[in-house]
Structures are given as C-alpha cells and as structure tokens.
C-alpha cells in the first residue's frame, strides 16, 4: 500500500512539474504575451484561510488552517515564494494535532482566458509539528515536500481572489495516546543505518511484521487573497 501511495504521489509530482513547464492546449491563445500581473519583478503578498486535513483510514477530522506568504516573480510567469501556514490537522477530545509548515516554493503561473490565473508549483520546507493535551505531548521539526495548485482572478485593482490546494508529504509521527501511528518502540531508519553495520546484525533481524505506512499525506484547501505591487 505504501509503495503504491508513494508511486501515486511521485506521479502527481511529475505531472505538476510538467504542468509547470508546459502550457495546456486550450490556453495556447493566451500564452503569447505575458500579462502585466505575471511580469518579472512583480511582488505578491498572500493571506489565506480554509480547511486542512490528514489523509488516511484512521485520521482525526480536519480543521482550520491559515497562512501568509510572499512571492516574487524572478522571471516572467515564474515566482519564488516563502510561506508560513498554521494548520490544525485534527482534534481528538481535547488533544490537538498542529502543523506549522515553513516552506519555500517555485510556482509556474499562466493565464487562461482573460481573467483566470492558474498556477502549479513544488515546494520543500521545515514542518513544525506539535501534539498537545494528549497525555504524551510531542513537538519537533521534520522535512516535508508538497505540490500546490490553484487559481486566482482579479477582483479589484492590485487585488486577486483565489483558491489554493496543496498536498504535503511528510513523515507520520509515532503513536500517541490520542492519535494513531507507527509504534515508537520500533527500529527507525536512523537506528537501522547504524546497527546494520554491526557484526551482530549479520545474523539478526530488526523488522517483524512492520508494514504500517510511515508517511502521511496532508491536504489543505484555502481561500486566498493576494495583494500585488
């Protein structure tokens, strides 16, 4: 299951990469000239809020998320941006699962028709995770990567309204009294990298029936408002 999921995510990332570099056929007519909004040197500041959730068979209900960020068009139609989000991924009673992604992303923008500005991008970042009021609280940073899709439309001078959808892949935290996860007593990759080099490991095994996925996929859908200048 895990391998299939990784393959699906890799395929999605490849699709995003291709989408980011190739304009769709039906938008060909609008790609000839770069709209002023997507010109090199433009700067955008975005604020957004919406829904965030962990995918999976055993996952808490999704909750609110919000964030803000800054993007600069380093080239026509290409922006590099930094974002900070705060996602309440789920609650179980009083226990809360929170994630704060601090990320850097590269996004390819285009224009479809006269006033729709869709985009696709890839990002990586440090994801701060916090589980509290669980009876066994935990917090820490872990790396994560994501694909982002969305579209914006101008609603006023220097103002765009849009929708942002992003899918994050990050490590699943270990089990907790409030939230499910892989056993914390198992061998982690860090342990395996060291112990498998020892002589005693030549005739020993560390994994028995340890097939639970160690990755979790996080989804968020947010309404976005962007100031351009």
């Amino acid at each position, binding site marked *: 299951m*895990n391998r299939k999921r*990784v393959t699906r995510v*890799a395929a999605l*990332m*490849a699709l995003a*990469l*291709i989408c*980011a*570099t190739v304009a769709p056929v039906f938008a060909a007519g609008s790609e000839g000239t770069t709209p002023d909004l997507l010109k090199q040197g433009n700067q955008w500041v975005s604020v957004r809020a919406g829904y965030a959730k962990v995918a999976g068979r055993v996952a808490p209900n999704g909750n609110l998320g919000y964030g803000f960020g800054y993007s600069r068009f*380093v*080239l026509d139609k*290409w922006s590099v941006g930094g974002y900070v989000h705060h996602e309440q991924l789920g609650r179980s009673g009083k226990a809360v699962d929170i994630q704060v992604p601090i990320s*850097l992303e*590269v996004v390819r923008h285009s224009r479809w028709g006269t006033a729709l500005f869709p985009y696709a991008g*890839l990002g*990586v970042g440090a994801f701060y995770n916090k589980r509290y009021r669980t009876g066994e609280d935990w917090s820490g940073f*872990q*790396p*994560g*990567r994501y694909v982002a899709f969305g579209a914006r439309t101008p609603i006023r001078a220097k103002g765009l309204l849009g929708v942002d959808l992003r899918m994050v*892949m*990050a*490590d699943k935290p270990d089990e907790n009294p409030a939230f499910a996860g892989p056993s914390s007593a*198992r*061998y*982690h*990759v*860090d342990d*395996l*990298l*060291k112990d*498998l*080099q020892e002589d005693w490991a*030549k*005739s*020993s*095994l560390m*994994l*028995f*029936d*340890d*097939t639970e996925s*160690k*990755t979790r996929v996080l989804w968020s859908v947010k309404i976005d408002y962007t100031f351009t200048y």
Partner: protein
Amino acid sequence: MSKRWILVAGALFALCAAPPVAMATGETTVTLKMGSAIPTGDFSGVATSGSTVGLAADYKVTKWLAAGVAMNYFRTIGSRNGDDITVIEPTTGNPVGMTLSENWTLTGLSFFSKAYVLPRGRLAPYVRAGAGTYTVRYGLDVSSATATTTAGGNEQQTKFGLNGGAGIAYRIVGGTSLGLEGLYHMVFAQGTNVTVWTTGVTLGFGTAGTGK
C-alpha cells in the same frame, strides 16, 4: 598514439569544430536521467550498487546559469540481500531459516542551479549544486523460509540533503540534447549520513530561448 586514442581525439575535434549553437537565455529544459547509484561512506556498509532515474526541469536565467527542480529515485540492494540466516520467530519462539531480500530506496526532491562553464560548439559542460528533501526507505522481505514467519517490513524517514556534481550536454538538434552527469548526494541522518554517488545518461528536451 594508438588507433583508439586517435579515434577519441578525432571525435572530440569533430564535436568542438561543429557549428556553434548559441546558448540562449530563456530556455526551459526537461531532462530525463538514468544510470547507476553507488553508495559511499558508511552507507556502503549497508547497501550495494543500484540504479537511479530522475526527472528535472530547469530554466536558463542567463547565458551561463540555469535554475530548476529535480526529482530523483535511487534503488540499491541491501548488503545482506540473498543471505541465509536463522532467527527466532517472535510469535512462536521457534527458530526459522530464511533467505533475505533487502533493499534501500531514496526519493529526492531538490532545487538546483547549473553553471555552464567553457561551452564549446554543441558541447555544454556544467557544474551543478542543489538542496532538498530525501525520503530514505529500508525494505526487508523473506524470499524463502523453512516455516511461517512474520519477518519483514519497511521503515522510512524524510531528511534534508545536498547534492553537487558536474555534467556535459551535447546538443543533437534543436533543443534536444544527450549527455552524461555525475552527482554526489549527501543526506543528513542522525549519527551517520547517507551518501550516494550517481552517474547516468541524460536526455534533455528544451524549448527555444531568446538567444540573447
């Protein structure tokens, strides 16, 4: 000078004498890479050689500098792969003989820059460096066993990593190019780093640039 060296020198001369193709800015190139992955350092103690595939997209910002995004997948065989061992099955307490099937995979997503140095005709040598995230995955299976066993499973963690190396691309026609590339990847794990050297053939498909 042997015939082989005369042939190599002749081929190099022909490549260098080929009509110069302007290295245009504004080019977008999508590159496929296939090759071998060789674990080094401590990682070579737990993994053996394997293979790699990669997909990258880059944009030429200036005549000599490009920036882009790359996805890489490496698969190497574990050092104990094929070994016959006997372990105590935890669910029954009985000894079970088994043949191991062991592998390591790395899936990386990184941002990178390429600096083209000394372009000559259709040849474009470059150095490359990048940074991103890598998911390190260890998989263990049993290909045969003397009794029922629960041995096996997988474990993975995502880490930050760096990569750097060099390559050369030869423009065949239009924006299509063929090349060679070697990259060294260092993934920061706790206590020990995962280091892999990859070499491979690259096939690039590009759009026409502005020619500035």
